[in-house]
């Protein structure tokens, strides 16, 4: 059984190279973009002492935060598209007949795909974000030194331990928070004949339109907004997002773990996965 899970996950990585190609590409692109402006960054560092303390932190941390955000955001996109196709593609190309000829249960198959979206894609994104930040730090250090600016200007202000910890925390809470979205997409992917993304969005869009027309209210929209952005609000102290989050004191895991939004979401995710397992069993190839 353990071997089945391992090989099922490996097989996902063989099929979906975008899991590591996309964050890698964005990392390279973002680094390239940053390096074309590295001179400007160096000038900021030269004058950094003249700024207010809060401003100094923002100037130093901003590029690191931006590149990490870009990579992590791509990770979420990759997970979304991955889930929408994960149980649909195998029926489209009929390879489900091969997978089902192996002694691997539908449960292991569906759970391995959920694992990829909820655990593996975020881990890969974190790895690329950390590497990109390390490259950024190394290159800026060299550039500053070459320009005769003390690299210590940057090093002394960069929260080298807290910054990655905050990032890992942020990714973890988002993975949990978004797991109902991934599970829902997996379910629709198993159910829909084609265009799973469209089918996944349709009920919510319809509910949104009907609600507006019938009641003039927009609870559905707020619910969706809450699902997309709620992890920010629930997992960090209020207003933490106004400045770069670089301090562990800005995290609020207790509140996150006690928010109903998290647990209702997880419950929904478990239900979706359970149904997806059943649907995969019943679905015959297209």
């Amino acid at each position, binding site marked *: 059984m353990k*071997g*089945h899970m*391992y*090989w*099922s996950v*490996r*097989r996902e990585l*063989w*099929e979906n190279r975008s899991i590591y190609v996309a964050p890698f590409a964005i990392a390279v692109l973002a680094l390239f973009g940053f390096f074309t402006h590295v001179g400007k960054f160096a000038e900021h560092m030269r004058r950094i002492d003249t700024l207010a303390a809060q401003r100094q932190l923002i100037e130093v941390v901003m590029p690191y935060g931006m590149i990490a955000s870009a990579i992590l955001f791509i990770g979420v996109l990759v997970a979304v598209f991955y889930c929408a196709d994960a149980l649909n593609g*195998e029926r489209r*190309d*009929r*390879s*489900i*007949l*091969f997978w*089902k*000829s*192996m*002694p*691997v*249960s*539908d449960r*292991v198959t569906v759970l391995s795909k959920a694992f990829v979206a909820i655990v593996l894609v975020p881990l890969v994104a974190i790895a690329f974000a950390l590497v990109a930040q390390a490259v950024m730090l190394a290159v800026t250090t060299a550039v500053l030194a070459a320009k005769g600016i003390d690299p210590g200007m940057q090093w002394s202000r960069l929260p080298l331990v807290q910054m990655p910890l905050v990032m890992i925390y942020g990714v973890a809470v988002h993975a949990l928070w978004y797991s109902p979205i991934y599970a829902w997409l997996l379910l629709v992917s198993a159910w829909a004949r084609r265009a799973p993304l469209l089918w996944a969005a349709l009920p919510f869009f319809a509910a949104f339109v009907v609600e507006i027309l019938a009641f003039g209210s927009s609870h559905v929209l707020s619910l969706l907004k809450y699902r997309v952005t709620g992890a920010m609000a629930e997992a960090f102290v209020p207003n933490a997002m106004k400045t770069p989050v670089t301090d562990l004191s800005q995290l609020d895991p207790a509140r996150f773990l006690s928010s109903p939004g998290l647990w209702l979401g997880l419950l929904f995710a478990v239900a979706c996965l359970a149904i997806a397992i059943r649907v995969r*069993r*019943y679905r*015959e190839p297209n």
Partner: protein
Amino acid sequence: MTCIEARSLRKDYGTTVALDRVDLHVEEGRILGLIGPNGAGKTTLLNAILGLTSCEGDLRVLGRDPWNERDQLMRDVCFIADVAVLPRWLRVTDALDYVQGVHPRFDRARADALLAKTAIPRGTRIGKLSKGMVTQLHLALVMAIDARLLVLDEPTLGLDILFRKQFYDTLLNDYFDHNRTIVVTTHQVEEIQDVLTDVMFIDRGRIVLGSTMEEFESRYAEVMVQADNAAAARELKPLHERQVFGRSVFLFDSVARERLAELGEVRTPSLADLFVAVMGGEPRREGAR
């Protein structure tokens, strides 16, 4: 030992009845050919045996309920359903690694040996292989698994005749033994006639004929009759009559060979001829190929 035991299987898709109270009993060590026109219910029956589709009735395969125990059943059952269901993005070596990883009865050395006899390059993605190569690869994977039941659904569809011949030769010489059972469906009836031990005709969800090949050979006879003997032949109530080069060919069921020998040259009919005789009588939506 019984390999497949099915009693009054029923399956419908809306108004279409795919299986209509099918009974099936297959002993271990048999090679059963399942023959029928398109849409006859062959694939539905195979899917039920493989646990890919649910249906009403009792079905046990190697003592298990396929629908509820598919994953355990697949340790003892292999299937090649249709052609080219191997995922196109998978590399040949990765396919080997994967099957080795998940299948307890897979013999990697044997698969490697089988592949060494082909021209399949290991590092290539399956999508880049020719159709014949994909089938060879799938066959190598399946033959390296020590399974008790092998199910083949149109395994040679779209392959040229050399590959088709080779496919069945390999299967018979290197794979089949009397502890194994093979169930195969195909349109190329004439190619598997010599391979089978049992044959079954299926039409509109029903088994219309089921027989061992020995029984088939002793029961059915075909006689080519000169025109002046045709009337006498018709009196023996042939199953079917057709014209070949101005002479009549009659197909008889359970008529003594001595009687028939008086009318002309007697021989065992081909499955294809019997198929036409049994199934060709009524008009149908889609022609039997």
